[in-house]
């Protein structure tokens, strides 16, 4: 069902004809989502026929469970509040405990994962949306599916790869949940990029900015502040901070609470709260432009009007804005930078349109913030630029950091940091631990994320047990625990007993993520294209691998082809041609077989090349040694060294 007829406006860049599919950038926001595409370094956001770039991140569920995403879903909030979900991003990777604090603001029932489920089931919460039990990952995947389909409509080609942005302050669980949602939607995530970094990329490339910049990103549900150094195409994040549960939605809730507090009727139900929040958002937007206004709220058939001026509104939200300013100060302090050294402050996120926010940010940095790129679109633009950089290539480079410290639980419930926050990624760090009991055969490893001393105040990421430690006296075992964070900011933990080599490694599946079983079940259930997708992906992977192998052989022939007899050469050329023919076909097994044959058929050639390389290297060493000897002799004023022509001969004498 097409909700919006999307056609291609003149300005949308047409991807190159020969691209089978195109990689897009997606800003998957709390309130709105935006998709953009970049061709030849020029990024454009994708718009519908009304010129709208913003797709409300709102999903309505029809009685049969089919999702409706975007503006239409948003317009259904008032009519059918129980079947419409918004701000799902706030629940990504969160457990039931985490969200009790926000639950008051969530007008739908949140349920923990059913008790007594088979082992391996996740602890991920379910939302009861009008009788349908849905995880945040599923709801998020419905938004991504809609964005993917819209993009395919506008670009008139398949979209299967994307760069998706996440708040810098998103923890491991929320990042994994986002990747899972994309996978469910049939999108390969090329990279998760932090939103402020994406904004800086869009901004820096556009303005050719150099020096220190701060990106202040206040979205609907999250706040991020990042400090970056931009220099000749390198975007280096120095420090980052934020609050994953603070955003413009909180402004709305503060205003809504004010209305409901004064409500003369009975206790408002969940529908009433939703309506009050929706009106509060209008109030916020209106008071960003006007000085005052009057609004009418109709609840349960009862009408009431409220007058509010900007000063009163600002008084309500000031504590929230102050919290962001304090976080900014901490981040500057972390990087040892005073506000006056910051050359510019980039504003990101719709909530930065609120005048009080601009005023307080300007106050901190002593300069007017920059907002000439639409703060709602700048992140998607940066994501699109990065998508192009990753698939087509680019001169720019993003160097990002870990937003939160990664640690391990030690005796007494304390956290020992293994990778401190603001460490450039990818990173790997190891720490050694030992047993504390004689004969201890297992060690529990509990990975946590956060800055607090006590483990239970940090976020639990994963637990696993290293077993099979041989009996030793307490303190004799040497257990090396390694934390590795990849360029997406995702953690892998491995543990190894050094004296025996007992090893265990897990990719951290967050406690509140989907289990592998659930993931495959969902993929199996939901996706018409799941199986085809898998086959296609495997075929694509084989082709990339075969391309590498053919390229390697061709390069070797170019350089060392003279080592081969004519017959040998012909034989290798034939296998190369065979492999290329297989790559052009659709048979994955044939491609793998051809690659194997290619490796086999070039083995002797490779040995010959190694011989030559080693001889050349030895000759180099020999020349160096003779040079040195000659130099020493020269210094002693003795006779001249052998003429240069003699040297290679003496080096090759061993042949």
């Amino acid at each position, binding site marked *: 069902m097409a909700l919006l007829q999307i056609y291609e406006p003149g300005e949308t860049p047409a991807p190159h004809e020969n691209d089978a599919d195109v990689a897009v950038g997606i800003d998957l926001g709390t309130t709105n989502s935006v998709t953009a595409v970049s061709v030849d370094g020029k990024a454009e956001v994708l718009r519908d026929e009304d010129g709208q770039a913003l797709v409300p991140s709102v999903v309505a569920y029809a009685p049969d469970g089919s999702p409706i995403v975007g503006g239409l879903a948003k317009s259904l909030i008032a009519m059918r509040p129980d079947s419409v979900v918004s701000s799902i991003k706030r629940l990504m990777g969160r457990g039931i405990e985490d969200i009790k604090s926000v639950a008051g603001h969530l007008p739908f029932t949140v349920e923990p994962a059913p008790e007594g489920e088979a082992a391996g089931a996740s602890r991920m919460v379910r939302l009861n949306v009008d009788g349908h039990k849905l995880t945040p990952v599923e709801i998020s995947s419905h938004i991504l599916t809609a964005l993917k389909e819209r993009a395919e409509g506008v670009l008139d080609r398949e979209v299967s790869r994307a760069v998706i942005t996440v708040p810098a302050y998103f923890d491991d669980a929320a990042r994994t949940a986002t990747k899972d949602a994309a996978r469910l939607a049939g999108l390969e995530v090329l990279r998760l990029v932090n939103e402020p970094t994406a904004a800086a990329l869009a901004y820096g490339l556009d303005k050719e900015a150099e020096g220190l910049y701060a990106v202040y990103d206040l979205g609907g549900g999250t706040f991020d502040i990042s400090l970056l150094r931009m220099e000749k195409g390198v975007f280096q994040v120095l420090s980052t901070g934020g609050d994953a549960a603070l955003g413009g939605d909180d402004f709305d809730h503060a205003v809504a609470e004010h209305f409901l507090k004064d409500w003369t009727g009975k206790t408002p139900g969940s529908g009433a709260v939703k309506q009050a929040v929706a009106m509060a958002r209008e109030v916020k937007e209106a008071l960003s432009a006007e000085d005052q206004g009057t609004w009418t709220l109709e609840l349960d058939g009862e009408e009431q009007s409220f007058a509010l001026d900007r000063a009163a509104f600002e008084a309500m939200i000031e504590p929230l804005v102050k919290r962001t300013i*304090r976080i900014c100060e901490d981040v500057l302090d972390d990087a040892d930078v005073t506000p006056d050294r910051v050359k510019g402050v980039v504003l990101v996120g719709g909530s930065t349109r609120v005048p009080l926010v601009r005023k307080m940010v300007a106050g901190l940095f002593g300069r007017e913030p920059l907002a000439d790129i639409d703060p709602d679109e700048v992140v998607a633009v940066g994501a699109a630029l990065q998508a192009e950089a990753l698939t087509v290539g680019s001169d720019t480079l993003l160097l990002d950091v870990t937003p939160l410290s990664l640690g391990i639980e030690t005796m007494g419930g304390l956290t020992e940091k293994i990778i401190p926050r603001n460490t450039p990624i990818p*990173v790997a760090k190891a720490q050694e631990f030992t047993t504390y009991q004689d004969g201890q055969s297992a060690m529990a490893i509990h990975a946590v994320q956060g800055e607090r001393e006590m483990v239970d105040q940090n976020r639990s990421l994963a637990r696993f047990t290293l077993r099979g430690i041989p009996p030793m006296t307490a303190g004799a075992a040497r257990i090396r625990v390694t934390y590795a964070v990849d360029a997406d900011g995702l953690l892998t933990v491995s543990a190894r007993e050094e004296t025996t080599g007992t090893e265990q490694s897990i990719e951290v599946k967050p406690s509140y993520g989907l289990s592998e079983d659930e993931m495959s079940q969902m993929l199996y259930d939901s996706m018409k294209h799941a199986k085809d997708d898998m086959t296609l992906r495997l075929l694509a992977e084989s082709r990339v691998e075969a391309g590498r192998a053919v390229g390697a052989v061709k390069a070797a022939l170019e350089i*060392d082809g003279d080592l081969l007899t004519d017959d040998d050469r012909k034989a290798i050329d034939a296998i190369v041609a065979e492999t290329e023919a297989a790559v052009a076909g659709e048979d994955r097994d044939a491609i793998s077989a051809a690659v194997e044959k290619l490796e086999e058929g070039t*083995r002797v050639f*490779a040995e010959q090349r*190694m011989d030559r390389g080693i001889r050349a*290297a030895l000759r180099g060493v020999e020349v160096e040694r003779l040079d040195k000897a000659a130099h020493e002799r020269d210094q002693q004023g003795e006779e001249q060294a052998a003429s240069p022509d003699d040297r290679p001969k003496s080096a090759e004498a061993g042949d």
Partner: protein
Amino acid sequence: MQAKAEGAARSNNAAAEQDIVQACWSCHGPVAVGDPFCSSCKAVQPPGQADHFQRMGLERSFDVDIDALEKAYFRMQRDLHPDRFATKTPKEKSLSQQQATSLNDAYETLKDPLDRAVYLAHLKGLDVLKEGCNALNDPVILMEAMEMREALAEAESADEVSDLTRRAQGDIADCEKELTSAFLGTDMDHIGTLITRLKYLRKLADETRFRRAELRSMA
């Protein structure tokens, strides 16, 4: 043919012993040890065993030219960062991640004077213990530590704390200068003491930072 094979085997050993050449995992041809890319097929290679100074092409010394370090770091990350390998084979992706990880490790270690000092001392055979306490036997340092800590406990405003931060930073700069000359000599005990002093000065500076954040959030 026989002789040739033997010759090759011999030179192979000799080359391996001298760590000059190894086989490229992709085209199986020769690659000079330490080269991040194969010169014939351009495939990315494993990061290998180079120490941080070698990796960044710098002389092994405490006195590091930070500009040169950053230039080398950016230049190498431009080629080796996983973002350059998003469409490559899983093996190449994994090798690029290893390379970028090694670069980050080298860069972070050499950029930070304390980490650099600890690392350089380690290369010179001195392992300064994690909770190093050689210096706590030093009464002068002990007094200094107690005095600063007292001042921090008594500071009541963010400004007062900032003064202490500046003082600590001045001491840190002095200590680093002393380390520069100490590393020119061979007195490893003295180097150990200076590193421990630097360590606690840095911890103190961090504490002033936390304290300031605390005072801010109470304001």
